């Protein structure tokens, strides 16, 4: 692959003695949607959390291997972890708005980056809410607590909040699994829009969704990468037997 934005080399991860990620090698293309597929429990969430170093929060994790981002290994101990997390926002499976107003949820990341004052914040908050296709629904109630939004709106708010940090990469962990079909579609369309400016790495176990939006596919099974490549090739001409079984719905 030419100029992958992230390349993962020989990544192994253990929770205590459980070998969760087994010798992972992945290349993630720039400004494309990479979908990570696989049955539940195969390590997809763990992989995303390793990318932005959220696994650091767990006790008893052991990691080896390299994750290269802009030619720098982000797994070395003395790296600026908050810097990495700003570059790679994570949208989690269950929307988790922060315990504050809608406005402040989006302004949160901006403030962390040192921006102050409502006059400077307001236009940016609007811009990112528009990017997440939420502005029209909340523009009259920016002062409401975020917890009053519907789940689908909350997920879009989380997306807007993540975009406000100005990431290069958006990591999304089954971002539509908790949502109703209409909200899912909205998020999906938004991703198609966003890939013009961002690299998106999205976990899903919904095959149809992967077919709709993936440019690139990584298929994992029991902690290993079984097959990866351009989406069309993956779906039309899978090379591995396990992939064929999976596409036929054998593991679901």
């Amino acid at each position: 692959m030419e100029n992958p934005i992230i390349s993962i080399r020989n990544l192994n991860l253990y929770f205590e003695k459980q070998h969760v990620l087994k010798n992972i090698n992945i290349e993630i293309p720039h400004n494309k949607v990479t979908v990570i597929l696989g049955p539940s429990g195969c390590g997809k969430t763990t992989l995303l959390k390793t990318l932005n170093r959220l696994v650091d929060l767990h006790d008893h994790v052991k990691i080896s291997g390299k994750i290269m981002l802009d030619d720098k290994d982000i797994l070395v101990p003395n790296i600026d972890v908050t810097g990495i997390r700003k570059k790679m926002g994570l949208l989690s499976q269950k929307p988790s708005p922060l315990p504050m107003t809608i406005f402040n949820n989006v302004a949160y990341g901006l403030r962390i980056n040192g921006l102050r004052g409502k006059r400077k914040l307001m236009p940016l908050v609007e811009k990112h809410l528009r990017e997440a296709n939420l502005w029209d629904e909340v523009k009259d109630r920016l002062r409401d607590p975020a917890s009053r939004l519907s789940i689908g709106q909350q997920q879009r708010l989380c997306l807007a909040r993540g975009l406000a940090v100005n990431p290069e990469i958006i990591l999304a962990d089954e971002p539509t699994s908790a949502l109703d079909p209409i909200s899912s579609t909205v998020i999906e369309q938004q991703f198609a829009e966003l890939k013009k400016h961002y690299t998106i790495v999205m976990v899903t176990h919904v095959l149809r969704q992967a077919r709709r939006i993936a440019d690139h596919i990584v298929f994992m099974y029991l902690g290993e990468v079984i097959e990866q490549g351009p989406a069309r090739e993956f779906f039309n001409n899978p090379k591995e037997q396990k992939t064929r079984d999976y596409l036929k719905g054998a593991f679901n």
Partner: protein
Amino acid sequence: MYNFVRKTKDTISEAWVKFVLMLIFLLPLVILASLLNKSWMVIQTSGIGDLLFSSVWRPMAGQFGFKPFIISSVYVTVLGLIITAPVCLLSAIYLTYYGSKRMTAFMQPIIDILAGIPSVIYGVWGVLIIVPFTGRFLAPLFGYESTGFSILSGGLVLAVMLIPFILNILIEIFRTVPHEQMEASLSLGASKWESIKHVAVRRSLPGIVSAFALGLSRAFGETIAVLMVVGNVVGIPRSPFDTGYPLPALIANNYGEMLSIPMFDSALMFAALVLLMVVVCFNLMSRYVIIFMEKRQ
């Protein structure tokens, strides 16, 4: 027949539960009524205003000004809470977010033991350690003269007693902050401390307020440990190194001996009434604050 027995049992146990609930509901009202009844005499004679705001305390002459006691109580309580609040908050944050699992497991029983120590023992410890420390070290340091039996000693002993009590509640509260929200904040590139400040503390604010309000009520009513270290001299304290005489200490020191003087007896009941009202008000106010804050999240 069998059904009849079951039904009867049901009816009886339901009636019993209702009766107990009724008692719990009535208890505060009964206490309030009896205190009011007993203190009615002194209220009639001296008037509420004089009782609360006069500082003339001459029981034998029938003059009961509670101002010195009320001020002592407020002084000791506020001092205790001011000393204890930052300690508890920071320790709870440390134990929840920074300490290792082993450290938390080690500290938890210690906190529980501290919470269970009878207040007399805190009082004795206060006399042995805190009083000399205040008298010989702190007072000269700030240019005061003091025997050590003082408002400050009372505040320090209270602070120590409150730590396990408030700390336990705070730890419990911080544990309820969803992991996902902390992760969301960290994912945005916030540092750990920023995430704690803006997410964990903010979300827990109603709980933190109620923890401190509970502590405040407890401190205001704490009798024996404070009584042992504040000096119990009637007078309005002018500095933390002055002696004081809080309301609960007044009641505990005089009740029983003074039953023979009806007006003094009535005055002490009035003191108890004030104590009760203050504690109830703390509770209601904190409840209001909590509801207000929860609405805004």
